[in-house]
């Protein structure tokens, strides 16, 4: 986006030479009209600025759309960025706006502005700018701009941009009478397979009540048929891929929520009902780090997320260790009591957070590098935050695996969980290992909290929503097996997402729970059963 803006500024510079002083008065008049409370006046002012079709108009309209335009009493325009830096948009104006007023921008205005700006950008020498503009125009139909688009199409050399422009003109062409244009439009639609144009294509195939085709030309109908088929095929594929992706992302959320529990419950057999609250603490740590960045390092505030990962780990791990030392260690071997006691702990943690941070949710913003998404193909958006969560889940799993399999601590942990007495007699301090294991499990839960803060709300009750799911994942996967937790989480996520469109969100979830209950009854040890005696210890 900043790159794009730079290009636009370059454009401005190119066009600056052409602006004549005679038109300047009209412009300042229009600019002042932008602040009028009469929406009609504002609209006509925008159209009048648009009609100039020069670089200055473009930069003014862009600033207006971004809600960063200010107009002073003399009708000079400024772009005032969020950080307060000012760009003068009217030549010869003073460097800072005096009593500058930001015009109100509402949806109505935005709907005019977006295609208008796109049409202005069509003349850019840069191909990427033109392509993006053409895509914008294809997304937002605006018949009034058709002449501009047609003109741009006639001079366009790049085939990619050309295709998008043809697509932008398609609805208009299809409702016209020119057979060649209609065919061109249908081919463009077929090539894009964009579901947005399905209603247009279907209109071509409509019949009158007496059963005759509205469209007389069979060639056009044939083209429309194949365009429709292409759209439907694409929709089918991307429906499937979409559900798989959604399932994968839900699975990784479940995995992150459950991984900490897979350690504390799976390995140590501590029924930690406060596990959800450790997730919540991880999320709140993220919030605190974000706040610190906003107040001390506002220029790098996007990086808070990277920094919050270790912080959340350490904070949750510390609280975990504290819990283990003060309470949980008295309960080893008495799982049911642990359950009740940790339930009490979770109540206390929730209320503490509520008293410190308030009962309301707190804002955790997605950093710009994971905000938004890429529309891989029309109708299917790969959102960056989801991709980031999937990757993050992979990293955390790798971290846990490494910790357990490749470090001396991991060796001790495995030894103690497999045979405590034997491990103790080999000189391992089981108490210390317990403490560290629980700490790491809690820390991993904190990492899960970081991820959850990017997707949902951060509030005192955050953890309560995940506790049942987490236990389900661990139990389904098989207690004590990391691979089981992995399989459990992704299996649940994907099945859930495949069921959701068929059965609806609620019934889908119920079906999943019933399935888990039945599955555990068939295979009490979960997907990945431990072999031998370890399975009997519970």
């Amino acid at each position, binding site marked *: 986006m900043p790159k794009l803006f730079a290009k636009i500024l370059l454009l401005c510079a190119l066009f600056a030479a052409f602006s004549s002083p005679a038109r300047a008065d009209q412009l300042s008049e229009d600019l002042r009209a932008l602040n009028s409370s009469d929406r009609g006046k504002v609209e006509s002012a925008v159209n009048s600025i648009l009609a100039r079709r020069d670089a200055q108009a473009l930069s003014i309209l862009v600033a207006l759309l971004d809600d960063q335009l200010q107009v002073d009493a003399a009708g000079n325009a400024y772009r005032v960025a969020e950080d307060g830096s000012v760009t003068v948009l009217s030549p010869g104006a003073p460097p800072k706006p005096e009593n500058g007023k930001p015009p109100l921008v*509402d949806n109505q205005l935005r709907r005019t502005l977006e295609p208008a700006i796109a049409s202005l950008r069509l003349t850019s020498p840069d191909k990427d700018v033109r392509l993006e503009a053409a895509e914008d125009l294809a997304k*937002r139909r605006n018949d009034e701009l058709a002449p501009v688009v047609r003109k741009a199409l006639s001079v366009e050399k790049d085939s990619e941009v050309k295709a998008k422009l043809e697509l932008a003109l398609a609805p208009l062409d299809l409702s016209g009478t020119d057979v060649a244009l209609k065919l061109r439009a249908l081919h463009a639609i077929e090539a894009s397979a964009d579901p947005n144009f399905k209603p247009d294509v279907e209109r071509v195939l409509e019949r009158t009540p007496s059963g005759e085709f509205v469209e007389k030309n069979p060639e056009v109908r044939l083209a429309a048929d194949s365009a429709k088929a292409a759209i439907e095929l694409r929709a089918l594929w991307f429906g499937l891929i979409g559900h798989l992706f*959604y399932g994968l992302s839900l699975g990784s959320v479940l995995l992150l929520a459950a991984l900490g529990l897979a350690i504390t419950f799976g390995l140590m057999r501590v029924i930690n009902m406060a596990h959800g609250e450790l997730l919540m603490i991880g999320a709140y740590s993220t919030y605190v780090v974000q706040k610190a960045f906003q107040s001390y390092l506002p220029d790098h505030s996007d990086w808070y997320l990277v920094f919050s990962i270790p912080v959340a780990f350490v904070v949750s791990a510390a609280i975990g260790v504290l819990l283990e030392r003060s309470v949980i260690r008295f309960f080893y071997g008495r799982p049911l009591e642990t359950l009740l006691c940790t339930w009490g702990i979770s109540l206390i943690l929730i209320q503490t957070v509520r*008293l*410190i941070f308030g*009962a309301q*949710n707190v804002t955790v913003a997605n950093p710009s590098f994971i905000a938004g998404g890429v529309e891989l193909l029309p109708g299917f958006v790969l959102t*960056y935050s989801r991709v980031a969560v999937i990757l993050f889940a992979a990293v955390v799993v790798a971290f846990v695996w490494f910790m357990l399999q490749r470090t001396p601590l991991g060796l001790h942990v495995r030894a103690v969980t497999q045979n405590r007495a034997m491990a103790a007699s080999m000189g391992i301090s089981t108490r210390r290992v317990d403490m560290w294991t629980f700490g790491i499990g809690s820390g991993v839960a904190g990492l899960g909290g970081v991820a959850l803060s990017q997707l949902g709300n951060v509030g005192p009750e955050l953890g309560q*929503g995940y506790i049942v799911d987490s236990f389900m994942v661990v139990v389904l996967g098989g207690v004590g097996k990391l691979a089981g937790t992995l399989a459990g989480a992704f299996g649940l996520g994907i099945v859930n997402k495949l069921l959701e469109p068929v059965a609806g969100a609620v019934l889908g979830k119920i079906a999943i729970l019933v399935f888990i209950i039945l599955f555990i009854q068939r295979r009490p040890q979960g997907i990945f059963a431990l072999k031998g005696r370890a399975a009997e210890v519970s």
Partner: protein
Amino acid sequence: MKIRIPTILVGVLGLIAGACKGPSAGTSPAPAESAKAPDAALAPAPAETAASETGPIKVGILHSLSGTMAISETSLKDVALMTIEQINQAGGVLKRKLEPVVVDPASNWPLFAEKARELIQKEKVSVVFGCWTSVSRKSVLPVFEELNGLLFYPVQYEGEESSYNVFYTGAAPNQQAIPAVEYLMGAKGGGAKKWVLLGTDYVYPRTTNKILRYFLTSKGVPEANIMEKYTPFGHSDYQTIVADVKKFAAGTPTAVVSTINGDSNVPFYKELANQGLKASDIPVVAFSVGEEELRGIDTKPLVGHLAAWNYFMSIDTPENKKFIADWKAYAKAKNLPDADKRVTNDPMEATYIGIKMWAQAAEQAGTTNIDAVRQAIGYQTVKAPSGFVISMDAKNHHLHKPVFIAEVKADGQFQVVEKTEGPIRAQAWSPFIPESSKKVADWTFPWVCGNCTEAKFKSEAAVAAAEPAAK
């Protein structure tokens, strides 16, 4: 088979004794008052009434401070306490101080009923301000009707109700949902042709959407162009639903009407933003998202989405400036979390108006007697922070309220894009629902009924004729 009788006896008896004492030990004045009642006993009035005519006036506050609803309800408790403090500083009501009794029903619906009973019977409060969810209101309603209590309910709700014992200071559907949909239908709002009615699966969204469906069909929208979807409470994964909305909307101007509740809004809006649904393409109008809810959301990607309320913090009136300044000062003085960033919202304004109206009515009635105050509340007017003079409808117990439609701004505030000329009268029974369209809520003579198709009393003459016969 030996049972240690003494142990058990002592234990259980002690327990019963403890339980009897337990709840009343919290506030000892009640028994003390009745204990020193000998002089009052000579008077014809019962002891309790005599006691309640002097000393502070007790006012119940019934909002969840823990559990899932704490997120919304705690600030209503705070704003109620603030308003009570203001009234006390101005000399109280009937020259007596107001004494708030705060209880925590913990987002637990049966507990709401229990606490309501306790407030009325034990604390003998003169009025209760509280509840947020429809189910909590439904849960306490029988209690208030049975014990003749007085409840002020400050949240927008689904309508289809009018109780003699409740005053509704939030919006009925025609004061929120219908104006918003009309706006989105018009050229200004984008001229939506297809509608997605998206909500959490409970009675408020169901009813609102039912009313909207009838309304939309009456405006000629075909059934095929309406998509209705519900998600469970606490639903946090909106990937599929947002993708469905996109698919449904393809190529046609579409608007989403969201009655998604509470916590689910954050994941919904985050998903919306990340999948690139801009307000200028598919505007979402929400009826449960206000300033307080936006505090938990990164609002930059939401710019342009809409909300409809009867009040917005950004409304520029002197009354509102004072309301906001008072609230911020109160938050600071009481050390509420995040005091400098506290916002005001519609239910808070409704709470504020409700308490003011009750205080005025009690002043006017010259007593806190519930029947007298109830008669006085009708026709009370308050100059509200929204800048309008708001009045209580004596007939259906709802406020006349103005409607504002506003777009989300990047700073988490709203920019009003449309408002009604003046306050609109609430329709307790929606004319769009066939079963309700003939119902009348009118607590004045000769109807005296919240849910009737004909008046309870035929005419004054008929009543006059009936009266001597009854004597």
